[in-house]
């Protein structure tokens, strides 16, 4: 009957719906939505600058107006006399002998001690009952400076009469650096570059300059310190690594770490700029001094002085190749300007040197990377971390080499592309997929956007042209260019660092449903780590509802939200703790129900859809019945494979854990008469290992790509070479891409699993920031025929005016 009816309307054999129950919804691999999304769109999500406490005071920092000077005197009396001012603190008021802090080298004074080493260095603190009162009081502090000569570049840093930024250094790098104004030096020597150079048919070299980039996260440095009855302090702050902050804060306050209780407030972006301390110690000092809660919020001007920037760099490169395009050797020298304090400079040097060859096979190399101490603004972590500067230079070199060989630039790259098994210049084998040639093939095979895309039936749409709504051209003088680049970024902390994370996972029955709670100290800075934690818990524990506790120091360290490492390391820790919880749940199940079904003892058991099931899919029990009123909780640390330090002379060593690869193709249109650039399309292909949340993965790739675009054509902190003062500390003068500056960013995601990583995933956040900049530069060179060996490119570089 049924069949007859069907035949009447549709032919037999017509495909029908097929359905399949999913295991646990919202698990890994799905684009689940952010658990904090609703709060963020309603304005209720509390960022660190939104913190409020009854009776709170406002803190203000007085910063140096000069880059290098002795402090002759500080007079705080007038500031203290202002109505509404509760405290004014200088170096003399610091409570203990620990008066410096720093990520690796404790060279940064909490408040200036008789000398300032860069423009904007903190000199004094004020607490008052209104932010404007605090600002005006700070302006009434009289500081007399005696200016000193400034160190601004390599020549002035190592000159015979160079002032030493940090006389009497006793850090662990001072023994192997050629000059005390050099923070760290990492050479890498492998093979015989001189002998290999003799085999080269073509040799190209170049000098490249990379400008100082700012992270320009939108949520300013801010937080609230609340003094506690036990003499300790509760600190609510936006940071990338709570426990690293804690380790630096507590000794300065003279408190044991357990009396400095830190909670992560809402973080408005980070990108490396919150790896170092900003207002943390200052707010705590003022709160402990006044006995009142103290809130500090930087404005944008202060934010430009309140965090480290991306190291500007000078890079010299030489590449050789045989006539058929095979690389013979590479020599390079990378000079990073670390500014007045060390911050993350040593690690940036390690990255720049070990990744200086790029994703290519070169057996004979001679590499040197150094970071300087200067009186320029301190530089440290920013997305891409040393690999960005190198990629800009080696990709320019690859194009130069292709031109000298009369080869297609993509073909040259593919011919020399690294693969799984290739040795890095450090001698370390790349032991997971490295689809470098394939990524290039993918971006190249994408159709190009149509020519003269600005033309409409109603004439030129100026919004699609260089100069945009300034209406500077309707297509006259506009030339198109196309450029390619590819890069390699390490994932996780390298060079022997004990890189681990901690996750506490609890499972219990609430309202008849099994639910999980995940507690880590991971800083959610916008990347979506908490989204992924919930997905991992669902996948591993078979629950629907997962609660993510706020990140704080009541749980063990999660390490930093940087180095593309959090999904790998804290994600790995959450998975590991979930597995331990699962074991305990199954133990309870065996105790309760083991005698009812032999599978409890014999089968591989999983938790799926709120049930205990066998790997064959047979349901053994509801989780609610298994757990009843028992609560299972595990807190455990998890680490990735250990790494080794690089040899200080040869640079050899298995220093890295994992790599991430991305390639870009940039299509630009350049108004050659005015020197204006419009990027039309910036296509990216990236291998992500496994996309735990595809929507978030694409968001990361597009965001990273755009930061690379920014430093290609607009972003640079300008430091006066004579005074070492910052000239453009505002969003009026430091430009980041707007929606009009940002092109379509099509993304092609590859998922080639890394067998060593949880779920096969790769850390993905940084790789797209590497290749985007050189791709845009290559496209502008392609359009204009100019050499363009510095970034960002400004109109005068294109017009020669």
């Amino acid at each position, binding site marked *: 009957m049924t069949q007859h009816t069907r035949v009447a309307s549709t032919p037999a054999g017509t495909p029908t719906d097929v359905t399949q129950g999913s295991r646990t919804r919202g698990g890994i691999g799905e*684009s689940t*939505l*952010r*658990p*904090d*999304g*609703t*709060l*963020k*769109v*309603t*304005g*209720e*999500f509390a*960022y660190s*600058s*939104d913190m*409020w406490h009854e009776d709170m005071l406002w803190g203000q920092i007085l910063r140096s107006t000069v880059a290098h000077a002795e402090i002759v005197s500080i007079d705080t009396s007038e500031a203290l006399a202002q109505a509404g001012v509760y405290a004014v603190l200088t170096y003399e008021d610091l409570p203990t002998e620990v008066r410096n802090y720093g990520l690796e080298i404790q060279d940064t004074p909490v408040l200036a001690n008789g000398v300032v080493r860069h423009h904007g260095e903190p000199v004094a603190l004020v607490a008052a009952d*209104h932010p*404007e009162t605090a600002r005006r009081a700070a302006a009434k502090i009289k500081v007399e400076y005696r200016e000193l000569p400034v160190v601004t570049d390599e020549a002035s840093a190592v000159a015979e009469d160079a002032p030493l930024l940090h006389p009497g250094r006793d850090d662990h790098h001072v023994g192997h650096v050629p000059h005390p104004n050099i923070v760290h030096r990492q050479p890498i020597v492998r093979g015989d570059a001189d002998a290999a150079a003799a085999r080269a048919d073509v040799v190209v070299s170049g000098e490249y300059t990379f400008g100082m980039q700012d*992270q*320009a*996260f*939108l*949520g*300013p440095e801010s937080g609230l310190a609340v003094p506690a009855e036990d003499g300790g302090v509760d600190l609510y702050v936006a940071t990338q690594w709570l426990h690293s902050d804690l380790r630096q804060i507590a000794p300065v306050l003279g408190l044991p770490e357990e009396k400095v209780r830190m909670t992560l407030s809402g973080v*408005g*972006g*980070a990108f490396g700029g919150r790896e170092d301390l900003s207002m943390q110690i200052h707010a705590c000092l003022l709160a402990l001094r006044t006995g009142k809660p103290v809130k500090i919020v930087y*404005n*944008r001007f202060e934010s430009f002085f309140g965090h480290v920037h991306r190291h500007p760099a000078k890079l010299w490169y030489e590449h050789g190749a045989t006539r058929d395009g095979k690389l013979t050797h590479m020599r390079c020298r990378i000079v990073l300007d670390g500014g007045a304090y060390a911050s993350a400079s040593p690690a940036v040097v390690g990255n720049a040197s070990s990744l200086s060859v790029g994703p290519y096979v070169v057996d004979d190399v001679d590499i040197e990377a150094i970071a300087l101490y200067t009186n320029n603004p301190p530089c440290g972590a920013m997305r891409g971390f040393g690999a960005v500067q190198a990629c800009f230079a080696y990709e320019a070199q690859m194009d130069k080499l292709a031109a000298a060989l009369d080869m297609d630039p993509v073909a040259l790259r593919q011919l020399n592309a690294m693969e799984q098994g290739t040795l890095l210049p450090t001698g370390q084998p790349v032991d997971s997929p490295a689809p470098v040639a394939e990524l290039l093939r993918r971006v190249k095979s994408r159709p190009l956007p149509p020519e003269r895309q600005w033309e409409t039936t109603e004439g030129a*749409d100026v*919004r*699609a042209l260089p100069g945009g*709504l300034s209406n500077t051209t309707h297509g006259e003088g506009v030339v198109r260019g196309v450029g390619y680049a590819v890069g390699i970024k390490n994932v996780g902390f390298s060079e022997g660092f004990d890189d681990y994370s901690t996750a506490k996972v609890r499972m219990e029955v609430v309202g008849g449903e099994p639910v999980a709670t995940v507690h880590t100290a991971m800083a959610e*800075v*916008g*990347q*979506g780590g908490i989204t992924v934690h919930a997905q991992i818990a669902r996948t591993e524990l078979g629950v629907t509802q997962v609660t993510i506790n706020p990140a704080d120091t009541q749980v063990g360290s999660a390490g930093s939200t940087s180095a593309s490492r959090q999904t790998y390391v804290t994600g790995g820790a959450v998975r590991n703790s979930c597995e331990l919880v699962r074991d305990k749940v199954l133990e309870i199940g065996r105790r309760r129900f083991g005698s009812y079904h032999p599978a409890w003892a014999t089968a591989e058991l999983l938790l799926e859809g709120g049930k205990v099931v066998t790997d064959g899919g047979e349901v053994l029990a509801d989780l609610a019945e298994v757990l009843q009123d028992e609560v299972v909780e595990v807190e455990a640390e998890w680490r990735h494979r250990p790494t080794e330090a690089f040899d200080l002379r040869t640079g050899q060593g298995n220093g890295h854990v994992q790599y991430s690869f991305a390639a870009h193709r940039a299509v630009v249109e350049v108004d050659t008469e005015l020197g204006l650039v419009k990027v039309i399309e910036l296509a990216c292909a990236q291998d992500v290992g496994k996309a735990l949340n595809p*929507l*978030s993965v*694409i*968001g990361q790739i*597009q*965001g*990273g*790509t*755009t*930061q690379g675009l920014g430093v290609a054509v607009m972003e640079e902190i300008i430091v006066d070479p004579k005074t070492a003062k910052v000239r453009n500390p*505002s*969003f*009026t003068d430091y430009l*980041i*891409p*707007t*929606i*009009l500056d*940002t092109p*379509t*960013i099509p993304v092609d995601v590859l998922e080639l699993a890394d067998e060593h990583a949880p779920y096969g995933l790769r850390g993905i956040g940084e790789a797209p920031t590497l290749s985007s900049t050189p791709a845009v530069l290559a496209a502008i060179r392609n359009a204009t025929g100019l050499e363009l060996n510095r970034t960002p490119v400004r109109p005068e570089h294109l017009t020669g005016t």
Partner: protein
Amino acid sequence: MRVNFTVNGRRQEADDVWEGESLLYVLRERLGLPGSKNACEQGECGSCTVRLDGVPVCSCLVAAGQVEGREVVTVEGLADYARQREEGCASGACGGAPGGTSLQDARGWSAQGTDSHTGEGTELAPIQQAFIDAGAVQCGFCTPGLLVAADEMLERNPSPTDEDIREALSGNLCRCTGYEKILDAVRLAAARQERQEEAV
């Protein structure tokens, strides 16, 4: 000084306001409405965008005294504003105190949302829902300003081209997303709006 104005349909009175205080400061620090954000406080980033008598403005550039007797809508009031527009009552079309709570609404009031922790179940404006669905929110600091600006654009221009969207949102900086998902979100909100209108 004392400033009287309407915020999200409610009359508000701010006392002891300094002459130099911005509308942004009064909203955030005096009225407990920190949804409008303080990314640059100099009119470059758009994170503090609110509507002042319907017009999108950077609230950091508006002196608090300038809003005396005027109406402000912030991201916290966006869902109500969108609902009232849907019902044809926004912009004072229904007379009386626009944006105010009617007696009937007040009687029917119940706690919004099913989860005080995550805000799940909260009634959202279409543009807010679209931002979540499209993945346009990362750190979220630019989001409130973008939502107010995008909602206003869709009110004026329900079927925007990509270039229209880019132009309308060019005063709002975002550092996380590269803007692609924001474009997706606005397109999505426009498409849903169109579909809903076709259904009516």
